[in-house]
């Protein structure tokens, strides 16, 4: 064995240096940790404008409105939607507002045991449908834009396939639709285990248990290295604040209703029904060919939860001809929070939606489920020909009734009903879109709330 040449003096000098550094860091860190830290998340001002059971709708107003059609953000049931507004300089919501978009965001709340029987159908065909109707009515628009995130993206896909007449453009981000892949560990585990029964036994799938599962996807990095990184930077106030914000978001995990969890794992992860257009919600088949509106599909190249293979088949299976796939060089969360993607992701979505804004079709049958080509041509012709109607819709949208104010004065329901009557009296025969709007309004049994976030 050859004699090793170890630079002992160099190593000892390094140890001394590092000990000094660590000492200084700990001193500084104690100052940082004991000082007042700004670790608030979701600080962009909003108001709750709709509420039903545990589900609430957040409304964000831009200072200058440049988009006619509002955007509804549908987040996953796993973790909280606050991730889209994690910190002021890395906020997807704020970027949308800066682009003049009016944004609505579903806050799914915290399911309790009472919600254990709430299914995917209830989420898609009840809560989301009611919220979409509420926004359509509020803005006097037949269609709105929808952007889904992860599991919320899968819900958006299901909704758009079942209610294409209400969706103008669909944006899916890190959305799993093809579950038949071994690229992601989640896919392997969900297919080969009885994890779906956890929700049934615990009544809801416990958020903490899911979080533990996510940590175990990469224990070396997520349980060890992450905190080593924190230790090395804990003398940096900005770093600590951002780190704590992320920790707050990561471990704020609501439970997932048992019925929804069970169906999502068995029908999607195990049977892969969604991409095959075989998934059924309350007896209605989710046919992806019904998705005839423009589709923008964005996903992360290094996403360990929803790998590209789980996302990139969607656009090939939908009925729309106007589709675009974008694969960003980032991970599952990086799309929304990394500073690099802040400059790419949200501005791209805003631009893409703006390009497809056009004019609102006025007379599209609400209940029609047309095939792809028909719907596509309808949409195009309507955009070209119905400029005045579009402008009307836009002007109506420019000053939506302040839900919060109405609720405060106790005139929410009556005020809506009155405006609906006045519209009716001014028209001899209502268009299908209007009928649909009315239906949505009547259907909205949810309450409006006026909780103003300071």
């Amino acid at each position, binding site marked *: *064995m*050859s004699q*090793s*040449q*170890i*630079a002992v003096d*160099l*190593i000892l*000098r*390094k*140890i001394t240096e*590092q000990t000094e550094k660590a000492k200084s860091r700990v001193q500084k860190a104690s100052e940082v940790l004991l000082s007042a830290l700004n670790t608030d998340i979701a600080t962009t001002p909003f108001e709750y404008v709709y509420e039903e059971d545990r589900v609430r709708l957040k409304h964000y107003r831009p200072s200058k409105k440049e988009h006619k059609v509002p955007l509804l953000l549908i987040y996953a049931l796993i973790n909280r939607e606050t991730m889209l507004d994690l910190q002021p300089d890395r906020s997807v919501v704020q970027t949308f507002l800066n682009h003049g978009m009016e944004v609505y965001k579903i806050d799914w709340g915290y399911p309790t*045991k*009472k919600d*254990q*029987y*709430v299914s995917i159908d*209830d989420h898609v065909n*009840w809560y989301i449908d009611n919220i979409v109707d509420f926004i359509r009515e509020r803005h006097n628009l037949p269609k709105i834009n929808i952007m889904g995130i992860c599991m919320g993206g899968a819900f958006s896909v299901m909704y758009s396939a079942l209610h294409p007449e209400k969706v103008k453009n669909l944006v899916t981000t890190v959305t799993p639709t093809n579950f038949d892949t*071994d690229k992601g*560990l989640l896919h*392997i*585990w969900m297919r*080969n*285990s*009885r*994890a779906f*029964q*956890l929700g049934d*036994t*615990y*009544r809801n799938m416990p958020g903490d248990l899911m979080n533990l599962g996510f940590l*175990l*996807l*990469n*224990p*070396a*990095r997520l349980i*060890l*290295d992450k905190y*080593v990184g924190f230790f090395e930077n804990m003398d940096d106030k900005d770093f600590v604040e951002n780190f704590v914000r992320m920790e707050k978001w990561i471990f704020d995990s609501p439970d997932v209703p048992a019925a929804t969890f069970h169906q999502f794992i068995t029908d999607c992860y195990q049977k892969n029904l969604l991409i095959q257009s075989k998934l059924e919600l309350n007896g209605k088949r989710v046919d992806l060919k019904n998705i005839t509106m423009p589709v923008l599909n964005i996903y992360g190249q290094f996403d360990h939860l929803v790998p590209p293979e789980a996302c990139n088949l969607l656009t090939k299976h939908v009925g729309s001809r106007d589709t675009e796939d974008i694969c960003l060089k980032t991970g599952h969360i990086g799309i929304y929070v990394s500073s690099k993607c802040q400059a790419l992701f949200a501005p791209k979505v805003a631009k893409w939606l703006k390009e497809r804004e056009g004019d609102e079709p006025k007379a599209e049958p609400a209940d029609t489920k047309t095939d792809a080509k028909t719907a596509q041509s309808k949409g195009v012709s309507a955009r070209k020909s119905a400029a005045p109607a579009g402008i009307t819709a836009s002007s109506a949208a420019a000053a939506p009734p302040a839900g919060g104010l109405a609720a405060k004065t106790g005139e929410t329901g009556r005020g809506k009903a009155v405006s609906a009557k006045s519209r*009716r009296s001014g028209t*001899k*025969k*209502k268009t299908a879109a209007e*009928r649909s709007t*009315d*239906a949505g309004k*009547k*259907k909205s*049994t949810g309450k409006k709330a006026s909780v103003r976030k300071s």
Partner: protein
Amino acid sequence: MNEEKKNETNAETVFADWMKSVTDFWKDMAKPEGGIAEMFGMSSSRKSRTVRQAQKNLETGSKIFQSLFSSVSNPEHMETLFKGADTLPDFLSSLTRQTWDGIFDLQRKWMERLATIGQETKAYSFEDIDQETFRTLREIYEKEFRKFLHIPSLGLNRFQQERVNNLIDRYTLFQTALSELLYMFYVPLEKTAAVMQEEIEQMAEKGELFADFKDYYNMWIKVLEGHYMTLLKSPEYTQVMDNAIEANLQYVKAREEVMYDLLQKLPVPTNRDMDDLYKDFYLLKKKVRELARKVERDEQQKSGETL
């Protein structure tokens, strides 16, 4: 042997004396004249029909009791009874023997395992994970201990007893499955340490050792991550994880059953009660929604026809 015989005879005598005093007591209590009725200051002439009936029942019961205990106190039967009692030490001895057999077996297998320590550990391969220890542990439990928890329960509380036994059983199985899962997470650490040792040896031979410890850490975490990635994708891990999930599910269910027994006695709703209530509530709400939508559609149609 004589001493044993003597002790046995003494026990029989004591038992026979006690039995006699008991039967005499109940004989007095059940006398047609006096007895319980007189204890409460009632003269025999004023005995109501109910009291007479009660006395008669007591008398019958007393006679049955006397005949039963007289039969038991019969020397021959007493001998049988005490013979039965003599079998208890045999039973205990058998139980202890089986338990120790299991423990010795486990110890032997652990010793065998210890002997394999130091053998080469293959990096990035998890097919050779030693799950034998856990399997042995589980087998010993299932063969030697578990059967005691499955001894048929008797009497009024038999179901409750069964549920408690089931909880102990499921808890043990869950702990075993969890230990195995946790062991799985330890294996990459062991393998990474071996890889690091090799790497550092090679680097030392070449004189290319890192001066900064952070570099060693980076190398270690990278190797560890690689090991975890390989492990977590492996069918062996998935199987162990699935076993742990299943064991956890069974344990939680068993715990709920016992909790249900406990809570049932208290003036609080149980989980089962609440589940039923939530389900009814959910179904009713759903029905109302469907009906509301139907009414709205009908109203729309009507108003459409009117317009």
